[in-house]
């Protein structure tokens, strides 16, 4: 039986299902597309069966695979997805509370993914750089610009 950082495949799926799905939604802003990528991420986990040192390693691997899977999905389906259908299936979050998910979804993807990993999962800059295969300074830069942009969106909409 295949083991993933001491977890069976079913345990790994149940443990990280929401993480993977949320990353896909964050990146794609669309639940239908996120479901496809979600399936592909766990299919890769099962068939590739990489060695993981611990559960954090497994989680980081799943997030990186999910981000890359979403990028590939966008590249393959860029011309096939009408803008209207994207808007119809877009995820909508409550804008009335303190949760800033709705504002995050309005930022550009390169800021969005850095902000989400930093504030959503409390990853350090170095860890985000490793997951996204970016330079740490690049991550820092994106964090700063993303933060400003997020405040503008959140504050502007709230003020407006």
């Amino acid at each position, binding site marked *: 039986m295949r083991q993933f950082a001491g977890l069976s495949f079913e345990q790994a799926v149940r443990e990280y*299902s*929401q993480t993977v799905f949320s990353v896909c939604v964050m990146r794609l802003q669309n639940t239908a597309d996120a479901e496809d990528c*979600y399936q592909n991420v*766990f299919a890769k986990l099962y068939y590739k069966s990489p060695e993981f040192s611990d559960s954090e390693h497994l989680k980081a691997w799943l997030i990186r695979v999910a981000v890359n899977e979403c990028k590939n999905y966008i590249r393959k389906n860029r011309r096939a997805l009408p803008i209207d259908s994207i808007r119809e299936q877009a995820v909508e979050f409550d804008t009335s509370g303190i949760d800033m998910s709705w504002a995050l979804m309005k930022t550009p993807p390169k800021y969005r993914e850095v902000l989400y990993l930093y504030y959503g999962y409390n990853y350090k800059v170095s860890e985000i750089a490793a997951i996204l295969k970016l330079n740490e300074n690049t991550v820092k830069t994106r964090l700063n610009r993303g933060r400003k942009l997020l405040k503008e969106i959140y504050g502007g909409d709230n003020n407006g």
Partner: protein
Amino acid sequence: MDDYRFDALKNIEVPPAVLQSALNIPDQKPKKSKPFYLKPGIIAGTAAAVLMLVVGMTLFLNIFKNTPSVVKNITSTQTVTDENGKIKYYVDENGETVPQSSGRAGEINEKDHTFVSGNSASGSHGRTAETADGSTLQPRIYNSETSAPSAQDQTVPAETQGTSQKATGTATQPDITEPNTADVSDDTEPCAIPTESPGIPDETEPEIIPPTVLPSEFYTGSLGLLLPADFSDSKTVFCRLYDSGGGYIGGLTAKTVSMSGGMKTAVAVPIDNGIELTPGDYNVIFEDSNGNVLCKASFILAYWNMSSSFLFS
């Protein structure tokens, strides 16, 4: 660190069906991608390339499959006679020299000039031949309506004029057994057979020229024999006609005609001699005034070539 909360996104619910589908991944057979050579694009491309190659090669090879412009007349046979007029050899349809004593079917008895029955079955007088590409060739037949020169263009010896010229309509039935133009002094002249040819057992035997059909410039419905350039105009050439069964139809006096380019021919017009041929198979023997056989051949007269000329050599 500022407090940015993304709990709504982080806690987004995974649809149960999607989760279940992920859990069932181990039960699913992995998708194996087809080998590159089984992909539709590769198959279609390969098929198109093969088709193009075949078509291209076919077109290329067809360039070299033209029909030869000169067709060998395999129906005619040529004989070699000795000083007494006796046939020593003749050439069959394959260009092979056959001794007279071999007794092959289809040979002509020099005495009575009757054809041995069964010559058609033997193929010795067959009129078709398989070419390299399998097509069947027939002796070339020319329609004099389009190719015959005018009477003014032809040089006709005076002694032969009026004997078989169709334009004048003064043809007379010749006496085959008593040629009135025979010249004794010409008896020793060679008959049309050049000498020396490789492949003949006896090197002293005259060369055998494979019979050919040449472009015809003769009168309508005529039988012609190509003569050597030095053939005496004063000599008379006779033409004997036989049906396919060997039955004697009649004799004709062939007119010797010198053509441009040094060609010399003997022309016999059956209708001018009162012989009206109907479509069918015929055998013909050309001989000189001494009875020496110059050529014997066969031809097919069909409805569509009733007005055509046959030239033998």
